């Protein structure tokens, strides 16, 4: 079933890397302007699913897929061009990965490769994105310093700003706080919640508490299958599947 009001939807979506199957017929909707959390133990297919949503998975030459993914009712893998998809569906990786360029160049990288040359427009995007990622005040005086000089948490917010500068519609977060200390984590989470009014977001996380804090709905993945998907409150209090309950109570994973 694909709900007509879904921002994105997966239908019977399966992924293989070589002979190993990573995802088994996943069907789920992502609603506009929600934060969908995806939790599950290691090797449950969370990241594979996330990377399917903006066609990053296919950069791996062993990647094969079946099923369909929709973005605003268009087939992601047939109706759209992969570069276009990645502009509309941005991703923030697990480790903060600034390119070895200046702060400014990192943020305007996306707009530049999309062909925006006008300096005023680029500067405007730069400030707007850094403000939205709550990094502007910390870096506005040193925009031309190498991005690698920033602290880990600042680097991760820079990566968020860099994604925002592409003016995407959906933002994917792949364990965005796995390398960060609690204070930086709180700042990143705060940023995500602030962004909710404008963006649809998917958050893959190993940290069930983070999913509980940030997301509106939570999906539980296990061994490449979608076990359960529900509103966060319901999922964390009365999970329907015993395996979800086992995972949430820390009996495995």
């Amino acid at each position, binding site marked *: 079933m694909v709900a007509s009001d879904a921002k994105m939807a997966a239908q019977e979506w399966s992924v293989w890397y070589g002979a190993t199957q990573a995802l088994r017929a996943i069907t789920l909707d992502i609603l506009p302007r929600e934060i969908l959390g995806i939790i599950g133990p290691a090797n449950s297919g969370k990241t594979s699913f996330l990377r399917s949503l903006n066609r*990053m998975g296919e950069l791996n030459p062993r990647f094969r897929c079946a099923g369909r993914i929709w973005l605003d009712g268009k087939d992601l893998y047939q109706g759209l061009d992969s*570069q*276009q998809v*990645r502009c509309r569906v941005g991703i923030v*990786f697990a480790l903060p990965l600034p*390119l070895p360029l200046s702060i400014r160049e990192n943020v305007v990288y*996306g707009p530049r490769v999309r062909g925006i040359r006008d300096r005023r427009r680029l500067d405007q995007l730069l400030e707007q994105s850094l403000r939205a990622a709550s990094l502007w005040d910390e870096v506005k005086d040193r925009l031309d310093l190498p991005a*690698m000089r920033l602290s880990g948490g600042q680097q991760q917010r820079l990566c968020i700003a860099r994604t925002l500068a592409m003016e995407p519609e959906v933002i994917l977060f792949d364990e965005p706080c796995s390398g960060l200390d609690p204070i930086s984590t709180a700042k990143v989470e705060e940023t995500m919640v602030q962004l909710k009014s404008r963006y649809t977001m998917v958050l893959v996380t190993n940290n069930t508490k983070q999913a509980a804090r940030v997301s509106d709905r939570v999906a539980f993945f296990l061994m490449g299958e979608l076990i359960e998907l529900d509103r966060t409150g319901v999922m964390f209090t009365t999970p329907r599947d015993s395996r979800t309950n086992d995972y949430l109570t820390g009996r495995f994973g």
Partner: protein
Amino acid sequence: MRTRPAQNTAATPHWRRARAVQRVAFVALGLSTGLVAVTSLVVVGIILARGAGGLSWEFLTAMPAKGMRAGGIFPAIVGTLELVGLTIAFALPMGVASAIYLTEYAADTWVTRLVRLAIVNLSGVPSVVYGLFGLGLFVIFCRFGTSLLAGALTLAIMTLPVIITASEEALRSVPMSFREVSHSLGASRWQTVRHTVLPLAVPGIMTGTILGISRAAGETAPILFTVAAFYLPRLPQSVFDQAMVLPYHLYVISTQIPNIPQTQRYGTALVLVLLVLALNLSAVVLRARFRRRRQW
């Protein structure tokens, strides 16, 4: 050496033997290193001692005279520089382009593996074979005649494997994650190469290229049949002209002409060595400068 008291464990036969072996290994390794250093110092020292006296402004800027027994080596220096410049102009774009294709575009199939194997093998081909190849292809078949063009193309083909291998190495050393980030920001494959991968690989590519070229600059065999003039007391007017070049000039005055003053010969050798040294030094400087600018 300081002796420490109460080395009970160190005194067991096992430890004593290990320490003896270590000492022997140190001495052997040190001697080998010393031998290499001494050899290169002696070579440079002899050339310096016998050639430095021949170096003068006139030697560097005058035409050869009296059947090359006197005068300068100006045309040979200019010829060598022009030849090296042309070689870079041919080899660098082609080498870097192939390396980019091989690392960034080509899938890992048996064809690309075969191509790679061929490239590696090319670097093992003796230089005189390149010379004959250049003679056959460029001088005779392409009708370039004995010319700077034919010589530069021959040297370019000889240096290509070095440039391709070094460039591939440099491109591959750029972390995969940077490519992913670039793709995730909507960049195409080419934009990723152009804006992310290539800038980071440039120092490695430059170093490899310069080292390859500096080796080519000292080669005699490949230019023997393709460009070198025995005696030509004027500068080449176009790429279709013959030219005097340092390595061949050195060979000629050392073996073909009797009664040449020693300073003439060693002076030429010294200029050649200095030229190659300058090229290598520029590689080192370039690398250091790039390294300071980009860090990750």
